[in-house]
């Protein structure tokens, strides 16, 4: 049961952190949450379809379909988050500078749908594979419910915590979360790309398992939130740093654009 708690908690936490951040920041930018129900429906439907058709998907690209599709989903989400962090920085600098509302909503819908699709599919596969096939349904369901419940509770606190902040503080905090979760997505995509031999497998630069093991609850949560990796390779670290740098640049550009806009108005 504990393993089910940890696995489901990690997946739920990854999705919930992202979606609650999007919800709180979209509200702070003055948008309503009308984008949420369609994104949730598309995400859940996509997760179910991905789980059900995993076998044919895996057969694509010479048997590398699953790895490549996962990497594409992760990298697209990461890209959406980089753009979003720029929008948040612009809006935090000068209200209404985050570009057209349709752009913000498109990014929110894309990130939510893709995040739900991936995390949902992983939970579905775990529950189906370990619960149904290994005959551990009761403990998987109990553990999964506990994990999902804890993840949703933390998401609720994050959402109301962000909403309790001032508009500016909420947007900057959301931009920081977008930057970190985006980098976490990039880090995860590197595993898939390594498995597909699209990235070289290299020697790990260090091993911090002694401090925080990846399989420990703290390690799982850190992995979900900031893409923690106990034994990173140079390529993984480089891509992680590049993702952070890209988000910082997007935020800087957003800030500059909003500053100019404010000057023009003044």
């Amino acid at each position, binding site marked *: 049961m504990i393993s089910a*708690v940890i696995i489901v908690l990690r997946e739920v936490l990854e999705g919930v952190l992202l979606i609650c951040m999007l919800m709180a920041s979209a509200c702070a930018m003055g948008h309503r949450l009308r984008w949420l129900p369609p994104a949730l429906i598309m995400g859940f439907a996509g997760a179910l379809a991905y789980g059900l058709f995993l076998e044919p998907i895996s057969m694509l690209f010479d048997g590398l379909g699953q790895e490549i599709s996962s990497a594409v989903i992760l990298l697209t989400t990461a890209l959406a988050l980089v753009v979003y962090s720029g929008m948040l920085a612009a809006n935090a600098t000068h209200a209404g500078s985050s570009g057209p509302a349709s752009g913000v909503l498109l990014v929110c819908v894309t990130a939510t749908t893709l995040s739900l699709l991936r995390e949902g599919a992983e939970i579905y596969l775990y529950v189906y594979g370990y619960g149904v096939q290994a005959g551990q349904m009761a*403990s998987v369901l*109990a553990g999964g419910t506990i994990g999902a419940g804890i993840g949703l509770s*933390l998401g*609720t606190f994050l959402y*109301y915590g962000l909403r309790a902040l001032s508009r500016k503080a909420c947007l900057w905090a959301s931009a920081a979360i977008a930057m970190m979760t985006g980098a976490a997505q990039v880090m995860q995509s590197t595993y898939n790309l390594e498995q597909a031999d699209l990235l070289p497998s290299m020697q790990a630069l260090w091993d911090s398992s002694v401090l925080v093991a990846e399989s420990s609850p703290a390690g799982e949560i850190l992995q979900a939130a900031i893409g923690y990796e106990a034994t990173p390779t140079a390529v993984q670290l480089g891509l992680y740093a590049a993702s952070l740098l890209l988000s910082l640049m997007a935020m800087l550009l957003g800030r500059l654009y909003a500053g100019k806009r404010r000057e023009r108005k003044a």
Partner: protein
Amino acid sequence: MTSIRIFLTLSVSALILLISFLSAIRGYRESMVEAELLFDQQLLEHAKMLSLLNPSALSGGVRVVQDLVLPNVVNPELGDEMQIAYQIFTEQGGLILRSVLAPVTPMSPFEVGFREVNFSGYRWRVLAILDEEQSHWVLTAQRIDIRYDLAEGIILDAVVPTIITVPLAALLIWLFVSFGLRPLQTLARQVQAREASDLSPVRLDQVPKELTQLSRSINDLLRRLQDSFEREKRFAADAAHELRTPISILKVQVHNLLQELQSPSAQASARELREGIDAMGHLVEQILELNRTAPDQYSLRFQPLDLHALAQEVVSQDFDRILQRAQEFELEGESCWVLGDATALRSLLHNLLTNASKYTPQGGRLRLRVAPDGQGVRCSMEDSGPGIPEQYRERVFDRFYRLHGDQHDSGVSGSGLGLAIVKHIVDMHHASIALDRSALGGLQVLVQFPAAAGGRSTGLPEEAA
């Protein structure tokens, strides 16, 4: 935060869920450790029981006997599998006795204590004890996967109710929060349902402590508004008195002046002066009327009224003006009842009538018709004047708006307030007003009143009956 109810329900439910689920995980872990200890205790008890046998009496080669089966009342399906394999060796390591599941080799090294080892395709928990009196080793073993499944099965039965009760708790929280917020909703409803003129204090039964300050503030605000409106009303009355008196004196003085002036040109100037004073008097009266009929100023005294009879009364008062202008007048219709304020409706009819007369040329035609129409009452004032072009019809209800600078045959300047007053009164009675072209060639003003209480517009209404 858009909804207090959703915020409280979600945050409290999330807190309860987090605490109860973390407690469930902690309970699960501790129970699993306890269950492990219990199974270890069973292995020890069985080993001790086996050591009570007299192995030295078991001569004649290795004996193979049935495994021990633990009775499993919790999960009977696991009962058959929950067997204890065992071996008895001499102190020198010679096998004396083993159960069916136990291998021929020692299940663990001959060292006292618990160990986890693999054999027969499974992982086992093995206990080895040495009976020093009888000089033999007793080894007992259980399959770890079965121990785990059994323990988890028992513990899950305790954890699952916690999981199930959380949604129930969330539902109860929602209901309690809704109940707790009821005074707030009642307060909001009371404030929303008020008429614009109702400024009496908001009254709530058993005001919760958190709302006391808010309801006090609202009542304080209402009291200040009431005072302000009272001051406005007093101002209107005072202004009426202060303005009417000098105008009346001016009129008398002009009258005397006209009597005293001999020169025809001086008399003409004095007549113009009199007309100017009359116009000013009219304007003052209209401004006061407009102020009195404003919805937030007017204290309504609604009662069932025969609108046709009211029209007759107003016509008789204003008939001199119509005669002076040699206009042909018709009053049509029949007795019909509306729920309204007599003073306001008199003012409405008076304004419609004087407006029509004023803007209709000498010798023109006027027609007032008051009659039941469907469920309500229809009042129509028609004239043979120049009418109002369609594009100006909305604007003529604005205060001080005068069509084409108010050039008309009467030569009397209007105040531009007549139709604004009419509109106020129409709104106050929840009626509707429309302007159209009249069959007489001029303007037709149509006022449609809703049905009086009881849905009747003819004969006596129920209240009056």
